[in-house]
């Protein structure tokens, strides 16, 4: 490619630095300060005084919840999502565009509204029950199961898409070669297809794990505030304008994300399966 256009990369590099590094740097600095909305900038000083927040019972429970819900959501989404992605790939329907549209379409509706809709039919008396005569999901509003259900079926498209992309890229002749060598279709799946789709699985898992771990709206709505994830505490700190506490917790999340980024770059250099 022509070197002439290298100049176009420069503004974006500056943009990324301003909007990625500076805010993150500010956040890290604020996490070791006493900064909050009631202080003027001259009163801000470096202190670790508020770090005991990390070891408070409520915070620890929230961290545990975040990890547990994100892990469970990722695992369930992986199992069901892989299954669906594989069925789509196997389906004899020629028009993959339509199938993919079907998977993505729900994502085009407002997330908060969809969650609210789910909450409604998780109540004892709900609109669906008044039509079909029985409660589809039972009276689960406010329970852990409700949160898990909401997370799984909200984020599963992010799992299906990269896996499907990875599956599509596998040359059909590899499957044929395996069967040709005497390996049954079932074993071929485990020995050829699955290992070759791992890239998509890793990407999908991260795309599901990160937003669930750091999210706060879905757990708050579906658990009716019963279940607190780390995101909910950050939300509280934001509302109370204790920014240093919020920053501290966000930095912890950031560290988890950096770890994930390291994993993803080992599998996928330029983020090809991200789409």
């Amino acid at each position: 490619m022509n070197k002439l256009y290298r100049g176009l990369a420069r503004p974006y590099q500056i943009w990324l630095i301003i909007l990625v590094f500076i805010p993150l740097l500010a956040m890290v600095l604020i996490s070791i300060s006493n900064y909050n909305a009631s202080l003027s900038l001259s009163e801000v000083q470096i202190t670790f005084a508020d770090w005991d927040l990390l070891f408070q019972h409520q915070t620890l429970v929230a961290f545990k919840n975040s990890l547990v819900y994100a892990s469970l959501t990722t695992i369930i989404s992986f199992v069901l999502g892989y299954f669906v992605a594989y069925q789509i790939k196997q389906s004899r329907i020629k028009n993959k565009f339509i199938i993919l549209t079907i998977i993505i379409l729900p994502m085009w509706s407002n997330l908060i509204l969809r969650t609210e809709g789910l909450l409604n039919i998780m109540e004892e008396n709900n609109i669906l029950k008044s039509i079909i005569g029985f409660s589809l999901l039972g009276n689960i509003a406010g329970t852990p199961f409700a949160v898990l259900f909401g997370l799984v079926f909200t984020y599963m498209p992010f799992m299906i898409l990269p896996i499907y992309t990875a599956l599509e890229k596998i040359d059909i002749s590899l499957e044929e070669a395996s069967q040709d060598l005497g390996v049954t279709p079932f074993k071929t799946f485990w020995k050829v297809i699955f290992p070759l789709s791992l890239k998509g699985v890793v990407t999908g898992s991260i795309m599901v794990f990160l937003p669930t771990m750091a999210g706060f709206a879905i757990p708050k709505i579906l658990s009716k505030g019963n279940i607190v994830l780390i995101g909910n505490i950050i939300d509280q700190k934001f509302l109370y304008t204790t920014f240093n506490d919020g920053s501290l917790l966000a930095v912890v999340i950031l560290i988890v994300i950096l770890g994930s980024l390291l994993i993803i770059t080992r599998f996928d250099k330029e983020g090809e399966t991200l789409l």
Partner: protein
Amino acid sequence: MEKKKALIELIDVTKTYDDENVVDNISLTIFENEFVTLLGPSGCGKTTTLRMIAGFVQPDKGSVIINGKLFNDLPPYARPIHTVFQRYALFPHLNVFDNVAFGLNNRSWDYLTHFFGLDEVTEEAIKITGGEPTKAAMKKVVKSKIDKAVRDALTMVKLKGFENRKVDQISGGQQQRVALARALVNRPQILLLDEPLAALDLKLRQAMQYELKEMQRKLGITFVFVTHDQEEAMTMSDRIVVMKDGVIQQLGTPKSIYNEPVNRYVANFIGESNIIPGTYVKKDLVNFLGVDFACMGYNFADGEKVDVVIRPEDFDVVDVTKAKITGKVIFSLFKGVHNELEVQIGETVLLLHTYESYEIGQPIGLSIDPYEIHMMKVEVNE
């Protein structure tokens, strides 16, 4: 001809895609230890035929018989057949060794003990334990036998020392050899090769043609080879099946197909040839280009119109005064070993090869030996 055992029999096999008979009522018998080539341009149905033998495509009509058994519904993995794919289809997540070992590594225990000989495995297992042939010991024996088989196969295709390479770190020719080893290590009865040399450059291709032929002879495996390259087919095959539009045009040894093409299509597809309209005067006499020629070995009705086929190298250039036919050189090209000439005789232009060089415009005298004159029935529809 000696009586050989039929290994693959295709009986009235038809495959239809979108109302088009890609393979149209083909019957073909392939014998043991044979090197058979399916030859034809792309879209002639040769690959579909191959895929039906391999089991990737089910025939709509007809039977695929292998070893005297009906194989139509048997899935590819159960067939004693292995394929070398056009683009090799090596597993990108495995190294060279694991690619070659793939088939054996994923077989059932019963298959493997049978493959290596149960007695031999048991015996060696006893040697290890010094007593009972435990399952663990037997597994160890089988594992080392797989290891040895894979190394032997890699040695055979001259890839010793490449075991730990990734398959995308080796050249096209080496990938091709890995694909070959991967199939051969399983000792198949039949090896199918789908244009395996198409992606290689000329020199490598010629070397591989020779090696493949040698391997087939040594191992005694039946090779079914698909190609669109007539020269490749000529060099390697015991028999060639020339196909067009899903139909077999001619089946025979390379020599018979070259010398006695049954129709214009085969004559044109297999090398260069002159096709001249003529008349079968009476037994052993044919008239073309206004001259009577002695011929031999063909039986037509007296006075029947025929197409005469003469290969460019079969003309004898003689002195003009002694010549049966004379003409004028209108084109001359030096081709290294020989000269390629175009000679005009009346309205007809003939292509011929000679060792002498001629100038354009020079007169030339030609004669043809009776056994070099081949005749075909005139095709009405073309």
